[in-house]
């Protein structure tokens, strides 16, 4: 590859473009986006029902831990995923008890769930594995090429040469959109998030819908977390999630609470991340990589300021619903 020696701008841009238009770049973008997609869609569901679930970071971490343990001792990666999802559901119920049944402040409840879950994840891991010099690992998920489709030039390696979980993640997007927009369940869920009192007078059980959304989000957080320990790193480390849950909170805002837009936001994040890695390793630009890590958060805040007027969060977000208080 020709190194760019002068800092002439046109030269840099052409080299950046060269990095972008590579099969590896697009494949990496999809790979990075997939685990975030699970958690982002999960968060979207709970926010659409009117509950900001800040338990995301902790539940992902705990899911990564329980999923890893299950896979390690059973030898089945899919069992690990199932256990991670179950873990998430349990803490989704706890979140529901705090914010829905008791109507406590959503952000404080969410942070406390994150705290408890992270504590339990680290505590549990130490109990099970002690302090090994070499972290125990599992045989991670293998790449599953879709027969025939994977042989299509360009598109094949980009789209059809991934881990099974990646396909699942991307299939969840149309599924989530269908559930949310085309089913009576989705209509009720959205009404619960916009105007719970109207929903209640139409006979929708507000609390039950919020519980369902929180259980769904918990399950998806758990799977998203286990993706890291079972597919990406094939081991559980204390930094396995390291703030990616908070990134998903940002992606939901950027995706304006819509499954398709959330997927685009996740892919954009994947693109920035993949580009950042490539530019770093090829030495084209000399920006500190932390600037790239900062980017999704800056973009989110900026987007919120720009979009705040026309694309608002679900109207009942953060507001507890109490039947007797109107």
């Amino acid at each position, binding site marked *: 590859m020709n190194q760019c020696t002068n800092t002439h701008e046109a030269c840099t841009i052409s080299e950046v473009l060269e990095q972008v238009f590579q099969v590896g770049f697009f494949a990496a973008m999809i790979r990075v986006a997939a685990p975030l997609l699970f958690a982002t869609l999960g968060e979207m569901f709970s926010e659409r029902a009117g509950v900001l679930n800040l338990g995301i970071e902790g539940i992902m971490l705990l899911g990564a831990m329980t999923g890893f343990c299950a896979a390690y001792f059973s030898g089945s990666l899919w069992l690990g995923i199932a256990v991670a999802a179950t873990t998430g559901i349990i803490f989704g119920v706890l979140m529901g008890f*705090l914010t829905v049944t008791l*109507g406590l402040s959503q952000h404080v409840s969410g942070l406390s*769930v994150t705290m408890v*879950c992270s*504590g339990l994840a680290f505590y549990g891991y130490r109990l099970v594995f002690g302090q090994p010099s070499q972290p125990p690992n599992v045989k991670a998920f293998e790449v599953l090429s879709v027969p025939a489709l994977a042989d299509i030039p360009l598109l094949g390696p980009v789209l059809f040469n991934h881990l099974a979980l990646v396909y699942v993640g991307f299939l969840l997007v149309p599924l989530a959109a269908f559930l949310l927009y085309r089913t009576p369940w989705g209509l009720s869920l959205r009404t619960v998030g916009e105007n719970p009192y109207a929903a209640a007078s139409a006979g929708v059980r507000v609390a039950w819908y919020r519980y369902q959304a929180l259980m769904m989000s918990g399950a998806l957080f758990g799977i998203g977390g286990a993706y890291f320990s079972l597919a990406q790193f094939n081991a559980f480390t204390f930094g396995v999630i390291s703030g990616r849950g908070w990134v998903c909170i940002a992606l939901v805002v950027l995706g304006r609470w819509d499954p398709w837009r959330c997927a685009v936001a996740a892919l954009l994040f994947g693109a920035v991340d993949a580009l950042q890695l490539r530019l770093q390793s090829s030495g084209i630009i000399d920006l500190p990589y932390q600037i790239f*890590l900062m980017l999704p*958060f800056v973009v989110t805040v900026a987007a919120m300021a720009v979009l705040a007027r026309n694309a608002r969060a679900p109207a009942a977000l953060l507001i507890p619903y109490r039947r007797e208080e109107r």
Partner: protein
Amino acid sequence: MKFTLEPRAHTPTWLNISLPVLALLATLVFCSGLIILAGAGVLQAYGALFKGAFGSKFNFVETLVKAAPLVFTGLAVAVAFRAKFWNIGAEGQLLAGAMAAAFVGARDVLPIWSLLPLMIIAGFVAGGLWATLPAVLKLRYRVDDVVATLMLNFVMFYLMLALVDGPWKDPLSGYPDSPDIRMDAEYPILLQQTRLHLGVLLAGVTAILIWLLMTRTTLGFAIRAVGENARAATHSGLPVKRVVFLTAVISGGLAGLAGVGEVAGLHFQVMASLSPGYGYTGIVIAMLARLNTLGVIPAAIFFAAIATGAETMSRTTGVPVFLADVIQGMSLIFMLVALLFTKYRIRLRGSESMYEHT
């Protein structure tokens, strides 16, 4: 059988006292299950934890040193939440304050006597300024403050990492941390042969000052009025937006002071591990203190005690040190529930329909 929560007309005193105690007991019971799982004796483990936190002069000082930043972030959150400015951003504001203090403290041109006051002012201003961003976004663009303040934490964190890994890297150590502050910029030690520094004292004094601000001044009254009922405050002629803005500045400034203390009293530089989430813990502490600014002190000492005590407990009984995180999280959950029941009572209802409004 259904139950509903019904607001209490008034809370009996015995409930106000017994429910938080009950919450603490529930936490300890829950966590003793975890201790048993670890194969240790419950009483031994809790005993070691207590001894580790308060057992000797050295341990007690360590607890106080750890409590200092928590007092500041707890105050920051308590003040902000009083005005219903949901500041989840104390972490970022702490880092802003720490960086300002580390920058000022390393300037050779400044006269020695001016170092400490300037560091404190710079830290307060930096934290306060960083908090004005979400405040302006909230007040002018109606951007949700929970998400905005949370996001800005990471912006500040990565900004700090980029700086200490780049232009602000310590040329002497070669590690990604900032150059050390001058010796004269360090907080004086209050108790020989310990780490008890001036910042611990300042934390206590600040808590009292903020308590006076909140209970004895017009601004404090305005902050509480805005938080309790913004509409009523507007109608009674309070400049609600200005009050919220000022609250944000004070809150961010207090968080910034937490950063000043960590730089001037403990680390003498900034680096990635400067704050193990003090800003987030501040939220928990403010909630445990029921947003009462004096209550922040015992809550912070409680949290710091668990963190220091857990180290000893882990060494002597083999219970993983992360029990501290679980205790802290669970105590918050139980306390939230307990506080709810000081305001509401449970009313059981028979076979009434769910859809029925009362």
